[in-house]
């Protein structure tokens, strides 16, 4: 009985929503007048809305602005009919959230879409400032998803497409004048554009590379706290994060109150990590805390030596195999086996984040062995090449002998004639 009642209630609730959606699909009078006025401010929303995802899904002006689109004149915009005009900054989140926080409603259009944006927004710096101070400058929904031309993030034209996110955030965060009152840096966009992550995304077209929202969250945008910045990076850089978590640095950094990854790699302008970072020279990251004489300094030097020797051995083996291959020798099996040394090098580099020499040694040593073997095979292949040259020498001697014989014969012939 109870179940039946619940079912009936569900059906009723669904009915109340459905006609509302259907109502929007009837022709609306708004567009006619707004286009006729000739005032760009009034006409533009109508023009842009044609490409908006909401328009594509059958929603019209009334869905957000209220009023009655069936009325032909100004009566359509009667506040008594729910007309709200341009929503106030405070109002925007409610207007959007009316549908977007309603799981049952959203399910009709995109069951996979999350419905917690409003909740998340409340936790963001934007949302908190809006709620607590009524800050008129903070971003609401429409600042990132421009009203009237909202497109899904998968659409390359969308303001929230992975390639566009940085630009969208940077419109405010990269504007020193706009951000002046908050006294926070505005160089994030410029720095991010220098980073390996942006290069990956923009040059290599790898859209899974992180942009602003991958680290800061999107609707709940806030700076990652110092204690959990490692977790954020570790989303992708799992192995390094795992090593780092067990390393002596993890505890010390936490005590010192400095972030894990970002202390060495910085945050917005993260560059490709190179072996050159692992030294004690002036600019190197280790030198900030360690000197050559202390325990950490020695470990750094040892780890660097290990990585360098592995890298060197690998390059040496690769070079000789390439040389042999160029000379036409069959070394593909050796080259194949050498791949494992490259693996070891990559793993050893990741193991640096344990900040223990043994960890690097454990990953790197098999690579040294493999490289040495591959190198030996390269040497053997080149020896075979020497053999070819000996064969050549023999055949050249024979050819020369024939030539000499013929020359003598020619002389004899000439002498006789």
């Amino acid at each position, binding site marked *: 009985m109870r179940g039946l009642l619940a079912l009936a209630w569900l059906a009723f609730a669904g009915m109340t929503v459905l006609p509302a959606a259907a109502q929007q699909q009837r022709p609306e009078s708004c567009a006619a007048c707004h286009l006729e006025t000739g005032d760009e401010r009034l006409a533009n929303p109508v023009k842009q809305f044609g490409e908006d995802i909401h328009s594509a899904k059958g929603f019209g002006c009334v869905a957000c602005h209220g009023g009655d689109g069936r009325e032909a004149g100004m009566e359509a915009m009667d506040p008594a009919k729910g007309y709200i005009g341009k929503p106030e900054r405070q109002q925007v989140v409610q207007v959007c959230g009316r549908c977007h926080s309603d799981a049952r409603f959203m399910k009709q259009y995109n069951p996979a879409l999350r419905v917690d944006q409003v909740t998340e927004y409340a936790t963001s710096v934007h949302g908190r400032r809006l709620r607590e101070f009524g800050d008129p400058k903070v971003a609401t929904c429409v600042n990132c998803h421009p009203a009237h031309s909202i497109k899904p993030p998968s659409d390359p034209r969308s303001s929230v497409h992975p390639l566009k996110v940085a630009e969208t955030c940077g419109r405010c965060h990269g504007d020193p004048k706009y951000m002046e009152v908050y006294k926070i840096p505005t160089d994030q966009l410029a720095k991010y554009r220098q980073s390996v992550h942006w290069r990956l995304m923009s040059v290599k077209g790898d859209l*899974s590379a992180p942009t602003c929202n991958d680290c800061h969250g999107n609707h709940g945008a806030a700076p990652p706290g110092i204690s959990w910045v490692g977790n954020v990076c570790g989303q*992708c850089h799992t192995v390094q994060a795992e090593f780092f978590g067990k390393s002596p640095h993890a505890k010390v950094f936490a005590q010192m109150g400095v972030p894990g990854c970002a202390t060495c790699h910085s945050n917005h302008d993260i560059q490709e990590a190179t072996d050159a970072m692992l030294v004690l020279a002036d600019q190197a990251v280790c030198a900030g805390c360690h000197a050559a004489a202390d325990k950490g300094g020695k470990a750094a030097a040892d780890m660097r030596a290990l990585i360098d020797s592995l890298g060197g051995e690998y390059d040496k083996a690769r070079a000789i195999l390439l040389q042999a291959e160029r000379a036409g020798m069959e070394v*593909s099996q050796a080259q194949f086996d050498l791949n494992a040394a490259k693996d070891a090098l990559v*793993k050893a580099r990741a193991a640096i984040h344990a900040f223990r020499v043994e960890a690097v040694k454990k990953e790197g040593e098999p690579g040294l062995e493999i490289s040495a073997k591959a190198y030996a095979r390269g040497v053997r292949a080149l020896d075979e090449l020497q053999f070819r040259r000996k064969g050549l020498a023999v055949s050249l001697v024979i050819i020369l002998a024939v030539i000499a*014989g013929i020359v*003598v014969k020619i002389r004899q012939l000439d002498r006789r004639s």
Partner: protein
Amino acid sequence: MAEETLDRQPTRRGFVNWFLGTSAVAFLLSVFYPVGRYLIPPTVAESTAGTVRLPFKADDVKPNTGQIFKFGNRPAILVRTPAGELRAFSAVCTHLNCTVQYRPDLGHIWCACHNGHFDLNGQNIAGPPPRPLDPYAVNVRGKQIVVSKST
């Protein structure tokens, strides 16, 4: 040669002829030796034109295991899914070219270098790999497994 030994000149000519003949034979040998060796079929029977006959039998690959094999110059991985199906992919991780492996405990393909995960369709499902692994076609002829580039 011996017929005209009394004459100095013919002896010399005879020597030249002998020398020329011998070296000509040696020359022909030095030409035909490589040609002969060239014509003998090499031990590896066929060129690896996008098809590889695997050095292990279909029965040797147990369900929920993977095997790395050489596909041209690059590693590839043959996986028998827990359901018993054979699948092959390029074993070169799309992130930094490490060689991936099969993790029976996870039931999918995993790259040890940066913890990249690929499902049994080769799709990158977690970690840094930006692209799926290239799939290859697997055919079983009798007990023999033949992997080829799927086109």
